């Protein structure tokens, strides 16, 4: 075979077979590659797209990136149905099957430990948005009639707006903190991610909480209900639930003795 090997995830041998036609990135089927009692889920990808240079160029291309990310996630989703996968980062590519096998051998212990830790668990994403910011501005724009009558009036109004804004933020923060506390207490583990900034949610308010929770599959129903219930007692706030995801946010703890060149930068004390 001439293609490269794209690895999606590592997991324990599957009890149920993968979907017959599980299409991976670049359109090729994703298949299990067994080694040392573990399996890597792999698909063949063309060298012309996944060798270093073309890959780097492709990653700058939104359409390509989006399609690849969706395909990657599609395989992970399918795996999540039948097992507990250890999801790898996008674009983990090896020359051939033996490269994949060597990787499994080199990391066997760590992979097993992580799989044990995550076994039977899924990740739920919870985001809280403060909705009023946009609505307030709209209301302001739609009210040209009530112009400030004087400079003092104008300043007072500005102060009121600022104060209302601060109050809103405080309420949002208190709500998000309380919700995170409640969900963390229920979940086995939690991660706070950077809020998706206005960058991804501009039309729908400001993201004040972006968190991931590790929950046993068996308790997921309860978790979902817990989130659902909070949606009602939060005027001006919107709670969004995504999942169940493979435990992306909880899989990536690289042990210190491995791969110093792969440790994310900026983590240690300055």
């Amino acid at each position, binding site marked *: 075979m001439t293609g*490269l090997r794209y*690895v999606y995830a*590592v997991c324990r041998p599957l009890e149920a077979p993968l979907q017959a036609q599980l299409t991976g990135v670049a359109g090729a089927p994703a298949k299990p590659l067994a080694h040392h009692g573990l399996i890597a889920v792999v698909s063949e990808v063309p060298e012309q797209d*996944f*060798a270093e240079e073309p890959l*780097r160029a492709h990653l700058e*291309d*939104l*359409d390509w*990136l*989006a399609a690849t*990310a*969706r395909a990657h*996630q599609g395989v992970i*989703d399918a795996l999540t*149905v*039948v097992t507990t996968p250890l*999801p*790898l*980062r*996008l*674009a*983990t*590519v*090896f*020359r051939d099957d033996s490269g994949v096998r060597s*990787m499994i051998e080199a*990391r066997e212990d760590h992979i097993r430990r*992580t799989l044990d830790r995550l076994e039977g668990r899924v990740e739920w*994403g919870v985001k809280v948005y403060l909705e009023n910011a946009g609505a307030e501005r709209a209301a302001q*724009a739609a009210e040209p009639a009530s*112009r*400030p009558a*004087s400079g003092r009036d*104008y300043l007072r109004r500005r102060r009121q707006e600022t104060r209302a804004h601060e109050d809103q933020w405080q309420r949002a923060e208190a709500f998000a903190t309380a919700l995170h506390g409640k969900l963390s207490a229920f979940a086995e583990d939690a991660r706070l991610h950077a809020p*998706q*900034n206005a*960058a*991804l*949610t*501009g*039309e*729908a308010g400001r993201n004040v909480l972006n968190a991931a929770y590790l929950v046993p*599959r068996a308790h*997921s*129903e*309860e978790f*979902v*209900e817990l989130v*659902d219930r909070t949606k009602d007692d939060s005027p001006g706030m919107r709670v969004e*639930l*995504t*999942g*169940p995801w493979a435990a*992306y*946010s909880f*899989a*990536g703890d*690289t042990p210190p003795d491995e791969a110093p*060149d792969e440790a994310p930068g900026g983590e240690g004390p300055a």
Partner: protein
Amino acid sequence: MTTPRRLPDPYGGPSSGANLADILERVLDKGVVIAGDIRINLLDIELLTVKLRLVVASVDKAKEMGIDWWESDPALSSRARRDELARENAELRERLARLEELEEGGGRSAGRRLPREAP
């Protein structure tokens, strides 16, 4: 335990409710980092940079994803800046006009005008 009102489709099914941003956040930024034979330093492609690049790469696509914040952010959009300025400007003009009206009315009844400020 009560029955949830809504459950995302069958457990383990496609990550329901997830948008492309949620997916990118996970597949690019989370998950296990293993250096393959093909070395791409994904750390260079920090998520925010990617997002910003997305915006630049394709405005339509970004809108589709719900990214349109730059349109209303005065720091990033000249249109938003203009809108903000125009609004402020109109407001000031109106207040000025009102003041001048008051002043003219007052001036006439008192039989004098306030001297214009020298430039």
